[in-house]
């Protein structure tokens, strides 16, 4: 199984632990990820807020670069994933946009390229059975899966399993021997980029998510998006100060939890880079 791998800026910087754990897990499961040569920015929020052409051109440029490696490109960051999927849809549906793009790039060449999220690849291509076989232990962790907004919505763009009650991350972690708790906040908003401009909103929203995770009895939260991770992991101190609630709950990338089940080393999975300390939890569960 060979895929082009688009890390995006986060996985090379603030979410380097997501990149490390992705590479480690992929290697352990025989998924060959080849980084897209000379990849560039996906456009992120600034591009699609300001210029439709730019918002399509940047992912298109990266898809062209990825095509040199494979017909399928794996994207881990939810925001990059969303931007790639949106660009593909817009290019497919809008003739004038396609015409504009074709002035600067051979746009027809990216037709048929598949943009895949790593969860999708692990569940559908690798298969839950293989993951069950590959796991080295049953981590006795109670996990809530937090999908955030961009993986599942809008459903016609991301084509995830279910926009209101997604299951794929749950299925994956259950196959890896963890207990996933059904909870109502799988797709709540974490506040996203308001972290910088309206921190008060992010504090309120993340406080609710963290509290609900505690209420339903979770040991930790599994995420698939660098920004969700940042908002949930970095704000816990401020929440304690502002609302006076104890939330102290470790946040993991799903790849890190999967890696633990596969018996990989914590340092290879980037565990320990987050702000909320997870040593106590992992020790208690015999995963230290």
């Amino acid at each position, binding site marked *: 199984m060979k895929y082009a791998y688009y890390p995006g800026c986060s996985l090379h910087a603030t979410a380097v632990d997501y990149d490390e754990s992705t590479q480690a897990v992929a290697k352990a499961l025989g998924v060959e990820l080849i980084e897209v040569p000379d990849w560039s920015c996906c456009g992120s929020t600034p591009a699609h807020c300001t210029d439709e052409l730019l918002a399509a051109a940047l992912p298109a440029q990266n898809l062209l670069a990825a095509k040199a490696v494979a017909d399928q490109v794996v994207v881990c960051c939810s925001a990059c994933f969303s931007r790639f999927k949106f660009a593909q849809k817009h290019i497919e549906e809008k003739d004038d946009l396609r015409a504009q793009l074709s002035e600067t790039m051979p746009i027809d060449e990216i037709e048929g390229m598949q943009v895949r999220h790593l969860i999708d690849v692990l569940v559908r291509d690798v298969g839950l059975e293989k993951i069950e076989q590959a796991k080295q232990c049953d981590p006795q962790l109670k996990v809530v899966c937090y999908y955030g907004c961009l993986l599942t919505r809008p459903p016609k763009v991301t084509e995830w399993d*279910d*926009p*209101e*009650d997604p299951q794929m991350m749950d299925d994956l972690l259950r196959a890896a021997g963890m207990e996933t708790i059904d909870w*109502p*906040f799988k797709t709540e908003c974490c506040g996203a980029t308001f972290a910088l401009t309206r921190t008060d909103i992010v504090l309120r929203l993340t406080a609710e998510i963290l509290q*609900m995770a505690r*209420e339903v009895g979770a040991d930790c939260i599994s995420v698939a998006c660098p920004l969700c991770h940042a908002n949930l992991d970095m704000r816990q101190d401020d929440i304690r100060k502002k609302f006076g609630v104890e939330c102290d709950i470790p946040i993991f990338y799903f790849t890190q939890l999967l890696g633990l089940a596969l018996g990989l080393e914590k340092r290879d999975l980037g565990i320990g880079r987050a702000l909320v300390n997870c040593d106590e939890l992992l020790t208690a569960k015999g995963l230290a």
Partner: protein
Amino acid sequence: MTAEQALVNSTETASAQPANGLTDTDAASSARQAPRVGVFICHCGINIAKTVDVERVTAEIAKEPNVVFATNYTYVCSTPGQEMIVETIKSHRLDRLVVASCSPKMHETTFRRAAAKGGLNPFLCEMANIREQCSWVHEDREQATQKAIEIIHTILEKVKGDEALEVSQVSITRRALVIGAGIAGIQTALDIANGGHEVLLLDRYPCIGGNMARLGETFPTLDCASCIFTPKVVEAAQAENITLLTYSEIEEVTGSVGNFEVTIRRKARSVDESKCTGCGLCIEKCPTKVLSEFDRGMTTRKAIYIPFAQAVPNVATIDKESCRYYKTGKCKVCQKFCQADAIVFDQEDEMITEKVGAIIAATGYELLSKDVYGEYGYGQYPDVIDGLQLERMLSAAGPTTGEIRRPSDGEVPKEVVFIQCVGSRDDSKGISYCSKICCMYTAKHARLFKHRVHDGQAYVFYMDIRAGGKRYEEFVKQAITEDDAVYLRGRVSKVYPRGKKLIVRGADTLSGTQIEIAADMVVLACAIVPSPGVEDLARKLRIGYDENKFFAEAHVKLRPVETNTAGVFLAGACQAPKDIPDTVAQAGCAAAKVLSLFAHDHLTSEPVVAWVDEEVCSGCGLCIKACSYDARKMDQRKRVAIVEEVLCQGCGACISACPNSSCELKNFRSDQIVAMVDAVT
């Protein structure tokens, strides 16, 4: 312009005398004589005249051979217009007519009557549609005028080939079949029966009553549904000329208006209806419990069951899907205890054939499943219920004997949120229509909740309040002013459980704020959708349905209870969402249509039917397969296909199927069609 003036202005054409020099004294022409056609071109006020130059059309058409008279007039369908036709037939010895005006669906009967009054065979009168198919759909006057001329040319070719046809008379079976025994079907059946005719009242469920039997109280008067409905149910059950056919389904319908033949599957109850006393002992002893459909899953019933206490008929039915005996071959407890010896395990479905003259579809509605709403928990939260589930709670005969108790723990809810338009007016769920009754029943629910739980609080999320109806708006006002319901204009984005509460998160668009309510119970006003299986029934009845699968009426304003198949009528929510007052009114209307049909001694049958040239027919039988009306049969002695003229609807399917052109449709013969096509090419 008067009719007289029109006559003066009209053009006597050069071909007034027959070209062959014969004199034609007889108005009904023989084939040897050249036809004498009169053409009447209608202005339809400005409907036609604005886009089509009727004067030019008249002048052009007058030049045609065989046209001995052509004129135009403001409204040919008016009384003077019709008189003009009658007069002209006589004065110009016309033997054929063309009226160029609207669609034949509008006025063919009018002009054929005028033709008959003038002494012509009505089937020698044709209409050229220059309104719907020309002036209404075009803007360019020059081109529209040219097209109108061409349309009239084609119809001239047709009328020249037309033959005088005679209508025949068919007897009527004065007996009706009503499909579906809810309030719509029962009301229709009662009205027809009270008119003195026999009615078969069929329902696929083990008892009659439909959705109305489930209801607690009804708007806008808050009288109990049972109190007003059971008298009707009992009347239907006791009426001498109503036969109940419960647990039965339509297998096949053949024939046509006045003389349908319906094959009905009487599903095996595994209980002898004539012996069962409804004592209920079998039910008590049956070991298998399943969710009750009648109580919408809020209680259980046994595998042998009577849906509810007042069910008519009060006869048990074994649900074979869940019965232990049918599944494992062991049990028969019910049979052991039955003192009436009514249990018959080897009972089989019975097919019966009934002749009826009219059929009324009254198959009602279902609620869109709440399982499709991810945002409201996919039906997984027990305290998120739908409107009909609340009705069962509100019913004195329901699972809580009329008390409102939440399904999860039986506690009395204090804060209840009602969400309207769940599915309705929501294109993302594929339903763009308004379900019409939810505004009213939600207001009723909010009021009844307050009447039962005095310290309770009802919240209603709505899009718009549509309370058009007698005393409806007042009723909603009372929900707010007397029963303190809080109405919030906005949508609910999410319902999720937190502890014992359901958190309802929505928007109040009037105050522009986000709202979160910690509710004890949530009631969804799910969209009204047609009952399952309507497509199949529509196919059997040969009637249409719309994009939402509601049965299609013949005309949305003027023929709301008729269908496009003569003799098949509609009543109730199978046609569109409707409340009880509207349903009862429509049921009465459908019954009136049936009664007026049954008031005739005979029906006249349309003579435009298929015809077989027996010398050419090879007896291949393809026409028999092509016919949807059972009108084509094989004459085994002559080995040729024949036409049962009474059954033939003149659709033409057999004509296209015939490989050697041995059948033709009268007055739509191939030579006529070819001449019509040639006229424009």
